[in-house]
């Protein structure tokens, strides 16, 4: 199955002639060449392309750290409400519905995270991190503190490093402890008067809860630093633990992870940021609040300014509100419980070594030999004891078994990591299928793995070739052919 590019189907060049142009010639381009296809042709094109794409509705999607849960279709209807289609420059008076919903969502997120104030402006998790670090920076500056460092554990998401650097901080990388968690002694050594913040994911990127969180928070706070919570793994904690209660000062929420808004092939998401009371005055502008029964926009007193041209990804926020309202307290707590149960059940069923624990909603298997674990010791494990595989190859082979593989080769401190997050939406049968895909892939020969995948739309794709000879448009492809 191969679908030609739109440009290969039909392309037309339209000349912009001075005669029928409303503008003088020197203000216009000469011509435009683009695909010209009828609606039935386009409908087929995109329908076929959609069928060449994996999604949550296709099957298991246990991409670690991405929380690929089911996105309730009713939230799409809610966001499609014509009354939601308003321009951001409308007067506050004329968009009371929008402001009320935003205010209510701020409130919900605050309660869920244990935070005192929440901004909804950041359009994605990384943008949330950036907003959060800007808040930290503004706070320190307001206190006359010139701090230059942000501490980030080696196991953290790449965005943490990039964000801190983007805000002008030096990044101090903290090696992982032997148990896969923060090494408190190493942290002690790293923390100083230069520490602006420690950015932490909890549970961390292999699903381990940072048990020493209270001590960690004390250490950072004692040095005058702030504690930043990366919300990527909040789906592990709903109703069981709140960052605010653990000592975090700033956090972001990934609504496209925890609150089930669709990932859209790479976005849009939304990355609201919550802060403790002391930091509220630094939040981005404008902020929404209720005053005497109506809603208004205002500029927080010492605002960091803006991280988005307007108010962020509004339509995504509507969906997040709908999801939270649908689930409520019990539903949210149940989502986390089942997400953690699923990860534990799946880990039990795979023949791969899972070096750390106890994990929560995700685990990092290693595509290598499995120790006979205390709890198990079954024969399958022994059979496979000699195998050691490239995680990326195993993943490609899993495609042949009809599932989406986990995140591979990350985090780096787990050798040949296969970071697996089944989320709460898989049932037991589906987890068993997934385990089978892991186990059979691991059991297949290296030759089979290297040849994989063979049952997919495309066979193994030459990624090195793509980078060596970048062809980034149909124009580039045409040029190559000539």
């Amino acid at each position: 199955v191969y679908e030609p590019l739109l440009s290969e189907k039909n392309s037309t060049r339209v000349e912009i002639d001075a005669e029928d142009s409303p503008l003088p010639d020197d203000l216009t381009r000469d011509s435009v060449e683009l695909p010209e296809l009828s609606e039935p042709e386009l409908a087929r094109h995109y329908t076929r392309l959609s069928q060449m794409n994996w999604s949550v509705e296709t099957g298991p999607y246990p991409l670690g750290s991405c929380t690929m849960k089911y996105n309730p279709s009713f939230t799409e209807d809610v966001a499609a409400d014509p009354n939601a289609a308003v321009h951001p420059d409308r007067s506050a008076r004329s968009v009371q519905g929008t402001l009320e919903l935003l205010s209510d969502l701020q409130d919900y997120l605050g309660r869920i995270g244990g935070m005192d104030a929440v901004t909804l402006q950041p359009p994605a998790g990384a943008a949330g991190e950036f907003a959060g670090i800007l808040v930290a920076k503004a706070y320190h500056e307001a206190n006359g503190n010139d701090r230059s460092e942000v501490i980030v554990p080696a196991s953290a998401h790449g965005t943490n490093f990039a964000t801190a650097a983007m805000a002008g901080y030096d990044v101090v990388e903290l090696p992982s402890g032997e148990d896969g968690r923060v090494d408190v002694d190493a942290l002690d050594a790293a923390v100083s008067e230069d520490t602006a913040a420690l950015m932490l994911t909890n549970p961390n990127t292999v699903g381990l809860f940072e048990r020493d969180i209270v001590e960690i928070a004390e250490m950072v706070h004692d040095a005058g630093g702030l504690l930043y919570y990366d919300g990527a793994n909040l789906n592990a904690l709903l109703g069981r633990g709140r960052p605010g209660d653990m000592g975090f000062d700033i956090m972001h929420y990934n609504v496209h992870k925890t609150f089930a808004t669709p990932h859209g092939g790479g976005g849009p998401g939304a990355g609201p940021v919550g802060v403790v009371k002391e930091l509220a005055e630094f939040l981005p502008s404008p902020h929404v609040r209720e005053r005497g029964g109506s809603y208004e926009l205002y500029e927080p007193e010492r605002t960091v300014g803006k991280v988005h041209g307007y108010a962020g990804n509004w339509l995504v926020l509507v969906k997040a509100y709908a999801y939270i309202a649908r689930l409520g307290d019990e539903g949210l707590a149940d989502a986390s419980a089942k997400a953690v149960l699923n990860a534990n059940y799946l880990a039990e069923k795979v023949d791969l070594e899972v070096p750390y624990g106890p994990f929560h909603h995700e685990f990092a298997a290693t595509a290598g030999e499995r120790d006979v674990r205390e709890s198990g010791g079954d024969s399958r494990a022994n059979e496979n004891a000699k195998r050691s595989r490239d995680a990326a190859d195993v993943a490609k082979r899993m495609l042949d078994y009809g599932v989406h593989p986990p995140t591979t080769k990350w985090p780096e401190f787990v050798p040949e990591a296969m970071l697996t997050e089944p989320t709460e939406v898989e049932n037991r049968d589906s987890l068993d299928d997934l385990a089978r895909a892991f186990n059979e892939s691991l059991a297949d020969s290296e030759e089979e793995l290297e040849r994989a995948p063979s049952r997919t739309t495309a066979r193994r794709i030459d990624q090195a070739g793509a980078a060596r000879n970048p062809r980034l448009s149909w124009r580039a492809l045409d040029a190559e052919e000539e």
Partner: protein
Amino acid sequence: MTRGSPYAPHTDAETREMLAAVGAESEEDLFDIPDEVRFDGEFGIEARRERDVRREIATTLSKNDDLTEFLGRGHHSHYVPSLVDDLSRRSEFLTSYTQYQPEITQGFLQVLFEYQSMLVELTGLPVANCSMYDDATALAEAARLAGRARRVSGGRVLVPEILREGKRRVLDNYVAGTDLDVETYATDDGTVDIDALEARVDEDVAMVYAENPTVRGAIEPRLSEIGDIADESGALFCLGTDIVALALLEEPAAVGADVVVGEADALGMPASYGMGLGLFATREEFLRQVPGRLVGASEDAADKRAYTLTLQTREQHIRKERATSNICTNQAWVALRTAMHVASLGPSGLVDLAKRCVTDAEALAAELDGLKGVRAPVHDRHHFREFVVHVDQPARAIASDLEAEGFAVHVVGEHRLQVCVTDLNASKTDALVAAFEEVL
């Protein structure tokens, strides 16, 4: 009504058996959280049925007044064909994520490749990424790129004094951690004051930014000169525009643009309270400095054409603090919708739409200009979609009165309004003019 999550499929029996399989007594046992930070309170959020949530949100949103919007200034909407809604909502697109496994995500990759290709055609620049969040962040990323790629000693970034505040504040934040400084240059009649700009430029300038059309809706008449001024001093020329304007106005590559940024969601999206799609295109030489995702063509093991994310070593998940940007989740699905809308229009449809942006604005300006106490357009320029209107009376009061009549316009000065017309509100221009007459 179920007590837990309606989206967790577990039957009670299944839960029990799975707990047994992992050797846990209860779900509680699975959480390795120290008692002192365990949460045993409640959020106080009541679960509601699907139909009740729908009803509740519909009721809330109905508190938005039903105004006909003549608003623009960076957030523009055109009629989105039903096809776009229908196809973009297909779950295979909507509920997928970044294409880490290209072998089973060829569909979305091809759409993004086609999106990039459309921008390449429209800008004339050979590299376009998959998306930035919006025009403001795209501009800010362009400045950072200019900072990394610069051949000059200084770090001055020149932007027009009329730059929209939202863009300016984002830009300020993005360059705060660098040695770049943002400065403004004067404008004249809604477009660049070339002499003023030229006087500001020297070899300390890393980037000159100009817009076409400008935030006033004015079409910049001397784009090539701006490009030349930047080029002669060694500064990058960054041009801000939007995806419809690109189809008619001068081609960025032809006027020397090094980077093109702007909003692309004028196609593909309804008004969405500022949710955007930042377009970003640049020259080949800056390829490895580009922020965000790039899709490239390649071949699979059967030598068939296939697509994949490429040049990922620029990105945060590989390069961490040395990445070109921290962006990860972007606006891919909006880009998909925009590409669908462009495809749906085709080149003639797109050019026609762009022409209407000129003629409809001209026509409405002429109508308003005929009213007593009103002058439009204020700027002696050709306009695209929108234009500034002078009113003798206080602008704020007029806008407020228009709102009472059911129309929203911008207030951009004490006696200045700004009005934007597209195919969505064009049928209401007579009513707007009548409302003006009413409130004047």
